[in-house]
């Protein structure tokens, strides 16, 4: 029998904390006893560019890269980036997207326009779309950088890992003085994952 592997594509803009998001989730899957592979790129791509991180967990994982049309989840920290990587989504896959809009340089310079119909286009292509107001909630919480952990909380509703594993992984990956704030962010995210 072919064992099921869970594929999570996470995307956003360099500096949004996409890589930390997958670091935490990867640790959760490891402590749940799974085989885990995760892939992303560093360096030039991180300077405000488009960022994608790929995470796979299950019984035995070969490729660190996810094949197009096979992602169970796309977690998008910014809506244009979510649309950019939407072709990774499987037919039954879920999209968790922050409605945040960050204009890329070609839009800022006037060379192109930020598309106005992104959410419609996402909904046309994907059946299960969850729009999360994570960035604004993070700002309300007093730290915009908790956006990623709010997104993680939202995703956690669809995964079967116990809360304790998330807590331990957050403690491992985030500076001690921000842990409490991030646990709060995680709880906020959990409540936000409604269609």
């Amino acid at each position, binding site marked *: 029998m072919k064992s099921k592997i869970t594929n999570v594509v996470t995307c956003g803009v360099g500096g949004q904390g996409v890589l930390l998001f997958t670091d935490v989730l990867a640790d959760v899957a490891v402590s749940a006893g799974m085989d885990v592979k995760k*892939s992303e790129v*560093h360096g*030039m791509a991180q300077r405000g560019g488009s960022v994608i991180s790929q995470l796979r967990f299950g019984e035995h994982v070969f490729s660190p*890269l996810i094949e197009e049309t096979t992602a169970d989840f796309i977690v998008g920290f910014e809506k244009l980036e979510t649309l950019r990587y939407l072709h990774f989504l499987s037919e039954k896959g879920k999209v968790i997207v922050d409605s945040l809009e960050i204009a890329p340089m070609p*839009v800022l310079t006037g060379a192109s326009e930020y598309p106005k119909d992104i959410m419609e286009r996402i909904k046309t292509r994907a059946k299960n779309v969850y729009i999360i107001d994570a960035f604004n909630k993070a700002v309300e919480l007093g730290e915009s950088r908790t956006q990623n952990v709010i997104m993680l909380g939202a995703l956690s509703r669809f995964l079967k890992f116990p809360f304790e594993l998330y807590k331990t992984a957050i403690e491992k990956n985030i500076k001690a003085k921000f842990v409490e704030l991030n646990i709060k962010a995680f709880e906020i995210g959990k409540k936000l994952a409604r269609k």
Partner: protein
Amino acid sequence: MENIKRSLLSGDEAIARGAWEAGCKVASAYPGTPSTQILENLVNYKEVYCEWSTNEKVALEVALGAALAGVRSLCAMKHVGLNVAADPLFSSAYIGVRGGLVIVTADDPGLHSSQNEQDNRYYGMFAKIPVLTPSDSQEAKDFTKLAFELSEKYDVPVILRITTRIAHSKTIVALDERKEVEDKGYTKDITKTNLLPQFARGRHVSLEERMKKLEEYGNTASVNKIIDGKKNFGVIADGVAYEYAREVFPKASFLKLGMVWPFPKELVKKFAQGKKHLYVIEEVDPFLEMLIKSLGIKVIGKDKLPLVEELNPRIVRNSLTEKKTTFTPETGLPSRPPALCPGCPHAGLFYLLQRKDVIIAGDIGCYTLGSYPPHNTMDTCVCMGGSITLAHGIEKALHNGKRVVSIIGDSTFFHMGMPGLVNAVYNKGNQILIIVDNRTTGMTGHQDHPGTGKTLMGEKTKELDCAEVTKACGIDKVHVIDPYKIKENRNLFRQILSEPGPTVIVSRQPCALLVPRKAVKKVDSEKCNGCKLCMSLGCPAMSFVDGKVVINTAFCVGCAMCAELCAREAIV
């Protein structure tokens, strides 16, 4: 089994761990994506002396010196770094080692953060050095340890060749403890370590013998392994391509090559026997394919698989099977190229340069992002240190009165900029050299260098001032400027351009990511007339909505360059 500690590590972290477990004592590197994190992790183990060397040639020579002094040593670099280190690389094969020497080259298929996609497996064949190619983090660690053993047993440095998807993918690794290796000490033996032609001849003969023995090893050792599957369908693969191949062909027989050079001819012949269908799946160049075909074996490889970009499971599937994965990515979306960060001091400099009719030879670092709009301030980007030298050549060829400017970062200046500057002075150059001195190695994530006054191990050291260094190289006109003071610099630039060179401008202000944020700037929309002058700073925190400039307060770091430019004082 439950006593084994398992950890999720990147390939870079696993190599650091492997070097530590193997008893490595000296490690050197110049930062370069995707290899940087090897030394950044290795330095956390107190038993290993670690340094950022000024460039990769220096790093390899430092590691070779340590190996000849009898300890296990490692040096790490990105693929193009090995070009810089090629000179000692070839010599090191002749000389060999005492303590094991491992040379890590991190290739970048897909050019995620590089200027080319060169395949460094060829260096093994070219320089006569064994090449190991791990396919996940566990192997990255295991092969690092194996590389030290092979290096000592066969008296030759060993190349560990990884790629971006090994370096920056995380997979599970079983951890071991460190095993100390006794120092072999230094003994004088000029027939081994002094490559005068008289001695080098003998070392070449010896090298050929050593490689022959290594080939025998590769034919039988477990570093190359056969995974049984369908009898008539075989796949030969190495590196991360092996993982993609297993994903796509779960039932095939596999020959997984962990040591691709010396090429294990007998093993390959044995595996190919009776296979009706034989594929070779490898990234970028047909390195294995060429060698397999040289044995007269029929194999399908690059006639179906691409020669460019990295592979992935979909490319392997669509190239080699009928069951294709089809999908339609969204089209017409605005691209999101990487950009200078909000508050980046380079932006203030580029703002002035983008208005000058000059030729600009660029170099390699964050400032290369100034090539993009709105700055458009780099005509060339070739290699580390290739700015000053190209500018000199352009200037010697052109006689139309156009000024030639070169731009190089502080770390890159110390890496390979200095010899070019000496050359420009010696050969009566007239260029304007701008050193963008942000007090760190920015693009690779803030590593120290000779200008920062701190070593990789966190010790204070002599801080070299690049302005003073250029004076010592013979430059008389040296200006140190603050790139945030755009108005002041505008007049200075005018003056410099009207005078003969060579001239040096050191544009000094620390990387904005290393400076505490100041109070954010806001736009008074009553006063803003939408002239967009401030927008030409290319600041990602600024946007233009309904005819007015808006500052994103989540991104703004308060550098105030926009406020300085605004003639209507609308930004406060």
